[in-house]
């Protein structure tokens, strides 16, 4: 017997599973495509030369150099610098919003801080060029302010809402019994936060920081505009640097499609992909564990 209702249900399920599988294919396709294009590079450049070579000079006549170590160091310097700035500020903000501020203040301030994430990075880069880099050049007596330090400050601002927002969520999600037990033992509010809440929230806070790290590694426009773009090995935080993302953005439009240089830029993209994927993955696993631990 023909069952109209059943057939319709089957068709609808088929529709949704097709779109689901299509999306999956697209997302897997992106990775496979990047991987296949980028991996070509290693047929001609050994991974040791690529990752540990200190010079990146693909256009050099005769003996081009393909080492991305200075680019990786540029990326890591800015990621580290931005976290040094945003972790203390972000944690303090999260503790204030979740434990100290009243609910009205929180309702108002949390979205405001999250709005920082809505400012396009190119606009923050512009402010870096027009305002922050002249200021930093003046304060530290440099000839110009386009360096790793200046970009760390701006990337730190970009990472801040991620760290505050997620850490605040984690703190708020802790069961109230923790607070009550601690206060009942005669702890002050600060002792309760320091000895009970922060240790319990530690894993979640680490996850928030990892997520911020992922954003800092992948940031392109700010570092392209403010980091100084020098491929020389940096000597201090006030050296101009060129992180991996900026290097791709600068060179990709000028390379010959299919050349070794083109493939090498894809290999750098692949490195970025893998780095951010791992960082996010670890953060995700930590959050999952945290949620399971405190769900009663």
């Amino acid at each position, binding site marked *: 017997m023909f069952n109209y*209702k059943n057939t319709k249900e089957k068709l609808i*399920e088929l*529709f*949704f*599973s097709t*779109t*689901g599988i299509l*999306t*999956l294919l*697209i*997302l897997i*396709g*992106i990775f496979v*495509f*990047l991987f296949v*294009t980028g991996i070509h590079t290693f047929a001609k450049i050994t991974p040791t030369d690529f990752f540990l070579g200190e010079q990146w000079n693909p256009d050099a006549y005769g003996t081009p150099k393909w080492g991305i170590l200075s680019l990786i160091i540029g990326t890591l310097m800015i990621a580290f610098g931005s976290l040094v700035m945003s972790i203390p*500020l972000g944690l*303090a*903000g999260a503790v*204030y*919003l979740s434990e*100290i501020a009243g609910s009205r203040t929180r*309702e108002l301030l949390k*979205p*405001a*801080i999250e*709005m*920082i994430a*809505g*400012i*396009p*990075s*190119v*606009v923050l880069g512009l*402010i870096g*060029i*027009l305002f922050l880099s002249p200021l930093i050049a003046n304060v530290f007596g440099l000839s110009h302010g386009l360096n790793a330090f200046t970009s760390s400050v701006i990337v730190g601002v970009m990472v*801040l809402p991620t760290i505050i927002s997620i850490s605040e969520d984690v703190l708020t999600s802790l069961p109230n019994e923790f607070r009550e037990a601690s206060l009942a033992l005669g702890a*002050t*509010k*600060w002792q309760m936060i320091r000895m009970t809440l922060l240790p319990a929230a530690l894993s979640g806070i680490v996850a928030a920081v990892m997520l911020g790290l992922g954003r800092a590694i*992948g*940031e*392109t*426009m700010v570092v392209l*505009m403010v980091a100084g773009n020098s491929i020389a090995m940096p000597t201090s935080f006030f050296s101009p640097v060129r992180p991996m993302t900026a290097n*791709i*953005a600068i060179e*990709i*439009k000028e390379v010959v*499609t299919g050349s070794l240089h083109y493939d090498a*830029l*894809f290999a750098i*993209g692949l490195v*970025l992909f893998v780095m*951010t*994927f791992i960082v*996010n*993955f670890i953060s*995700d696993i930590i959050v999952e564990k945290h949620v399971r631990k405190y769900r009663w």
Partner: protein
Amino acid sequence: MVSEQSKQAIYFTLFKSATVLSVAILLFVLLFIFCEGAGVVDIKFLTSMWSHREITQGGILPAIMGTFFLAIGVSVVSIPLGICTAIYLNEYAKENLLTRTIKLAIRNLAGVPSIVYGIFGLAFFALFLKLGGSLIAASLTLGCMTLPWIITASEESLKAVPNSFREGSYALGATKWQTIKTNVLPHSFSGIMTGAILGLSRAMGETAPIIMVGATFFIAHLPNSPFDKFMAMPYHLYILATQHSSPYAREYAMGTALVLVALIFMLNLGVFALRYNLRKKKAW
């Protein structure tokens, strides 16, 4: 010795100052953009074509329209596909290791840098599919980038609908689709939409990927087909700020930034207002 009470007072003041500082950064950024950019924003700036020779004679209409077309293109590519995928993953797919792995992978793809999507778009859409640098290549590229964001946001709102809503519907003899249509989607729709709008507003401000797939600093006409190159606000202000020789370039970059940020913030404010009302209404 410092008493615990005064220690607490010191720390709490520090925490409060940190929060105030974070908000002050936001206010400073907004104020700075406004003060530096408002001088050039007027009706002519918003409604006339870009004048390549003398930048003070023209406006950024083609860049505004380009960003607008791009936003439409991205929504068409990623919003329906993203929502359907979220419905599949949350309502139809069996809850097993494979589904969990897929969800995890999608969440992680949301954090992959935009420039990586950019080079993918260049190699695949622009060169391999021969779409060239065009509005459609850029829409597809940014669409791929926003897809994981939209799936994640939609999934979260679907998950927030309590299971008792579904069970109640089944108990009355409804089929799966009837349940989804009448008891799940109505309660998650606004959450899904806010997620989609937020994703879209982030895509509108993206610069790095569109550098590679068709954004251009100057074309004399508005794009009249999806295969045209296009101007876009973020790319426009990037070139004005870094590569333009006019003495007015930076002021005009700030003006463009002001228009872009105003647009994005209006979308964001709308979303926050919607969310606030939503949270008040939901009582389960």
